[in-house]
């Protein structure tokens, strides 16, 4: 069956036995329907199976799709950007707003590759800062207000906050300013140094890619 190039919400795309549902589609009574207004894409299964989640995000390495079915998806028309929400396992960039002994409150700025339109708040709890020696972690030795942090979403959290974690080598502070106000450079996994004053400060430093 030849696929139409565009779809409107509710348009029949094909039977669920022939295609895998991709982003922008839904299944109703064993048939695949579009749920967005946009263009239809059919991706043949590559060696590594195609991500089933939304394509405009960094997708976890998990979710291997065993079937060999091609994935059909509807991508929203490119003329305008669409709002994106942080999802569990997404890598986000955020700015630290304030710290307490138990947690750091951050504002999520970028989710995956997309700059967010809306302001979403996140929380890095003290036990989620690093993977080892969790009981010795002190928030003020890991983050300071104003730092830019790369973190992973671990939960949709409570009413207001997403719960984030930096418990991986490549997660943590990627940009920091010193108390003197200069941009600092990372010198070890837990230290940033101000190049002008030479004073070093403690941070949970992200390993460079």
């Amino acid at each position, binding site marked *: 069956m030849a696929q139409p190039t*565009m779809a*409107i*919400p*509710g*348009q*029949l795309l094909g039977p669920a036995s022939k295609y895998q549902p991709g982003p*922008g589609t*839904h299944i*109703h009574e064993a048939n695949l*329907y579009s*749920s*967005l*207004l*946009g*263009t239809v894409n059919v991706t043949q299964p590559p060696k590594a199976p195609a991500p089933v989640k939304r394509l405009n995000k960094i997708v976890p390495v998990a979710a291997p799709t065993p079937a060999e079915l091609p994935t059909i998806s509807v991508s*929203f*028309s490119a003329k*305008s950007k*669409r*709002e994106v*929400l942080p999802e569990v396992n997404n890598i986000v960039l955020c700015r630290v707003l304030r710290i307490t002994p138990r947690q750091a409150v951050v504002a999520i700025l970028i989710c995956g590759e997309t700059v967010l*339109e*809306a*302001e*979403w*708040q996140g929380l890095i709890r003290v036990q989620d800062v690093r993977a080892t020696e969790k009981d010795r972690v002190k928030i003020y030795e890991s983050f300071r207000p104003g730092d830019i942090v790369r973190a992973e979403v671990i939960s*949709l959290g*409570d*009413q*207001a906050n997403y719960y984030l974690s930096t418990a991986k080598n490549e997660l943590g502070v990627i940009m920091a300013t010193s108390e003197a106000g200069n941009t600092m450079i990372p010198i070890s996994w837990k230290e940033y140094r101000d190049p002008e004053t030479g004073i070093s400060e403690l941070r949970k430093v992200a390993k460079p890619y």
Partner: protein
Amino acid sequence: MTDRRRINGPVGATFPPVFVYEGEDAVKETKKTRSRPPNAIRKMYLKTGVTPSASGSAYLEIETSAKGSGSGLKLSCTVHGPRSLPRSTPFSPHIILSTHVKYAPFATRQRRGYLRDSTERDLGTHLETALRGAIIADRWPKSGVDIIISIIEGDQDRESSKAEGDESWDMMNALSGCITVASAALADAGIDCVDTVAGGVAALVRNAADDSVSNIVIDPVPSEHEKILAACCIAYLPTRDEVTNLWFKGDLGASDMELYTSLVEKGIQASKYANRVLVECLGETVG
């Protein structure tokens, strides 16, 4: 010496204006009758993306029924979001819809205030029910979306000053327009929907005062009929064959189930016609 402090009348004598009396016939001629067949809706114009600052928007216009005096329906809809909820709201695993319908102060014969009155809140509630059945709400956890509709022209005949056919019938037409335009704006905003929902109205009307025969028309214009006995507004999903909202008004004999069913059927037919316009409009948006 003339009094310069006040505005003086003309010096000479004047006469009050006398208007030419046109006779009974001229008045009678202005009484409108329905010119389309009973199973046809009025022409409709729909366009998406009219408000650049909103996430999604649409504009709907329904042509004026009669020559000259009538005013059609003009709706503008904006969709804002999905965006984060205020901090006070509890956790929600799905999107929270909030709908606002507002008549412009000049939209109807009776001037409207700036605050929403009960009919506008009523329209908003009905609209929310109609849309909630079409949206896939769990694709957007922890977020809210605002749907705001301004009724710019309220589909009322400006000439008939008498209170024939009270405003409740106009609300029906307004609601069906609101549903169609909101559906287009939601699709434009990229919010997941199971189908394109569209609104339709059917009414049981009586055309002459002495006539005991009543018949069913779709997309009724109150000023074109002598009396509207009952009306129903339907929000319908065509590919799923589901009704998401049903609003019935008027008095029908409780015994006559046939009449209820056929009124609903005609309402569905009207919304199918509206949906055709909607599909075409969305096709233009993508292409």
